[in-house]
């Protein structure tokens, strides 16, 4: 189930600032309170896929005295895609909540 939302999770993890793969995984773990315990490597196909789709851009960065890393950031299209996914997730989660709680349909 998480895999279906991985792209949106990665976009959200990059919303605050550009980051490299390891930092993205750390952000996901911290913000989900370790609920999303997925193999760390699965984030890389998602990063590649999102970059190919034009939602992310990346570049190699070498900090002084540090290790060379590929740093990803949201593009303008990525910011728009994240907003769109937030909206559709909001509708979806409200619908599931209504179903599970036995409530009537939420306001359209």
């Amino acid at each position, binding site marked *: 189930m998480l895999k279906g939302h991985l792209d949106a999770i990665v976009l959200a993890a990059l919303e605050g600032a550009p980051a*490299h*793969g*390891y930092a993205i*995984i750390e952000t996901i773990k911290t913000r989900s309170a370790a609920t999303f315990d997925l*193999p*760390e*490597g*699965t984030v*890389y*196909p998602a990063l*590649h*896929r999102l970059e*190919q789709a034009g939602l992310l851009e990346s570049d190699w960065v070498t900090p002084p005295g540090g*290790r*060379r*890393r*590929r740093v990803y950031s949201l593009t303008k299209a990525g910011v728009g895609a994240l907003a769109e996914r937030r909206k559709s997730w909001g509708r979806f989660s409200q619908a599931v909540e209504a179903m599970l709680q036995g409530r009537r349909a939420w306001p359209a």
Partner: protein
Amino acid sequence: MAGVIDSYLASLQRDLDFDPALARRLTEEVESHLRDAAEADPAWPSDDAERRAVERFGLAREIAAQFAADAVAQQSRRTWLTVIAAVVMTFVAMRLRVMWLSDIEITAASLAPFVDRYAFAAAIAVATVGWFAFRSSLLPLAVCLVGLAASIAAGFVRADLFTGGAPLHVLLPAAAEVALVGLLAWRVVDLGRRVRRTENLKGIGT
């Protein structure tokens, strides 16, 4: 002796052999990730710290399989776009041949006109059904390719293009349609190779 991370990177590079450029880039990227993760481990420096970093990262072949599956989807989209271009070009070239044929005596009183027309129609029908119902399957692409190739060959026989003498406005579109169908053939073969590689990577993991 190679370290745990080095061994892992070597196996990741092997599993990504379907895309050498991606393999080089990802190996470097994953190396910095794994070294960061190992250094954050309380047992660093040790093989155990590296082993835990590798275990948290996941199996190399499973990660390679995800990349391979994405590459298949991308190549499939490109192949379908090539189908559209090849169908349009074949149709244009066919119409130009027919216009030219009406000015000359048709010498090929054979099956050629029938094959020219109906193989093309069959290719369009199979491509349409394939697009809507079996987009992830190779079969409609292969059938469409055969249909277009048969139609083009029959068109060439019909217009006597194999012996030469056709005007430039017939030869140029004919060359373009052959080039596009050639490109389509290459894409179908490449897609088949990528599908087999993906299945192989997924199969090893089960």
